[in-house]
């Protein structure tokens, strides 16, 4: 390679070289790329067992070059528990949407975290049910219009959006819980660092690792990619503040 042709970007080998099915501007693609890069950089690819969930990320098994098993809607944390109990020597990763994790799968995520299962879960919060056409999710912001909240989410009838990483951070079995965004380069760098921690706590058998990624769904937000990205900064981050909600490694170091 000559001086002029310096390689500045290469696909991590955990990432399969195929086009994804995500809509333009969808940040599922960014979240899964960070996961793939980390699996590669941390040398985990060959040792990883992936549990996929039901939502727009359902085809994640086609994009990450790892062994995987499909979980029913919301049940990925239970499936991941089964995988880890069967193969405690493997790195177990799961990836869920906000409808999947914070609505139908609420019991499974809470108890998986509370038991302190040594698994890592990436939680992509895009404030809607993306795959089924943009219905209201437990994370939909107050006033946000969706196909099942046409007048906007009404707090008095539908409650307030659920902040998952704070809740998960409260549970005894959680080793790491953080919320990140991938709306600019700085946040993407931070997100990758946080995701790495959520992976490392599993490797060190410290307990449950959780990382919430605020993400765009331009299609169901009825916005172009740029506007959707701005909404992350202007509307999502003020209600879903970025930061670490629990980190047992930090407590140890204090």
């Amino acid at each position, binding site marked *: 390679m000559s001086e002029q042709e310096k390689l500045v970007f290469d696909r991590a080998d955990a990432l399969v070289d195929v086009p994804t099915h995500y809509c333009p501007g969808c940040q599922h693609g960014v979240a899964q790329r960070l996961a793939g890069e980390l699996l590669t950089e941390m040398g985990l690819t060959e040792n990883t067992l992936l549990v996929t969930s039901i939502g727009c990320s359902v085809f994640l098994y*086609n994009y990450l070059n790892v062994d995987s098993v499909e979980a029913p809607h919301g049940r990925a944390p239970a499936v991941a528990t089964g*995988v880890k*109990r069967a193969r405690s020597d493997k790195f177990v990763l799961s990836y869920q949407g906000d409808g999947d994790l914070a609505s139908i799968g609420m019991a499974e995520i809470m108890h998986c975290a509370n038991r302190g299962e040594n698994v890592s879960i990436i939680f992509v919060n895009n404030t809607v049910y993306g795959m089924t056409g943009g219905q209201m999710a437990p994370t939909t912001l107050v006033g946000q219009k969706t196909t099942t909240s046409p007048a906007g989410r009404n707090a008095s009838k539908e409650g307030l959006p659920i902040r998952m990483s704070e809740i998960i951070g409260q549970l005894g079995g959680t080793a790491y819980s953080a919320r990140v965004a991938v709306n600019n380069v700085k946040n993407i760098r931070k997100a990758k660092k946080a995701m790495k921690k959520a992976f490392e706590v599993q490797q060190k058998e410290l307990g449950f690792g959780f990382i919430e990624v605020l993400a765009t769904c331009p299609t169901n937000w009825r916005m172009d990619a740029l506007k959707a990205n701005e909404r992350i900064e202007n509307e999502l981050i003020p209600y879903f503040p970025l930061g670490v909600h629990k980190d047992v490694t930090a407590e140890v170091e204090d």
Partner: protein
Amino acid sequence: MTKTGEKLFIKGNEAISRGAIAAGLKCYFGYPITPQNDIPEYMSAALPAAGGEFVQAESEVAAANMLIGAAACGVRSMTSSSSPGISLKQEAISYLAGSELPTVIVNMNRGGPGLGDIGPSQGDYFQSVKGGGHGDYRTLVLAPGTCQEAYDLVIQAFDLAFKYRNPVMILGDAILGQMKEPVITWTPEEKDENEGHGWRIVGAKNRPGRILKSLHLSEGALAKHNLMLKNKYEDMASFTQKEEYQTEDADLIIVAYGSIGRIVKSTIKKLRNEGHKVGLFRPITLYPFPSDDLKKLAEQGKKFLTIEHNLGQMVEDVRLSIRTIADSEFFGFYPGNLPTPDDFEEPILKALGGK
């Protein structure tokens, strides 16, 4: 741990637990519900001691989904529950069948519908034998009638699950779970450590990632998958088991399974002593159903009476098996009552009399 050749006086629930551990169970996932609580209670101590993993799940839904994860890894896994809990497991059972994952599910049937009661019932025949969850699929269903048979069949269940890459259900009831009987234990030969080699998830080393899933979206893919499953179920049909008692010279065949089959056997013994020509046909595999053997009896001109502890479920399969040759009468003992051999005398005599 259970030693080979020990004679124990134990409940059906414990026989199932010991049989499963003898068969090399690695992961058990449970949730409390009467009348199967002895199983998770036994497992919580004995399975870790045998080197396995016990998890008391947050619900039957979670327990069944944990099975998906463990089964995908190719280890021997099991859950147990009773009727309302089995209803909750059905979505995951459909995924297990669709993803071709081998596992064992124990149902100690109690009275329903709804919360019903905690006594015995055979009201779950349909939800066990006819799929139970969504989509076209079948689980192999084994129905033990004694504690010894429960021990033996659970061991066989694991082999069948891996042979066919399919969930296998053990269908018992509150009688079988709670009664104590002598059981002679045995341990199968060392199982293949590489069980599941070729399909289980272990990490993608020097090969592309493996995907265990039930989703088939591309043109024609689901139809192909369903055809493959259908062929598998047809193949499974070669494996049927039944008990026949005094059927040879019988004019009337009583068809009954599980605990009821066993109670009816006592009634038949008594009636035989009184000179009545009646015999028992007890299906042990409920799916696949031993249709051919029933048909042979029908061809000999015998009459049939199906007796169940429900309002009439298996009788449909009996009638299907012997259709165009004979029919079966039905006597349903209603769940909520505990049957004794005397309860079946009158309906059997009536069926004999109506010759």
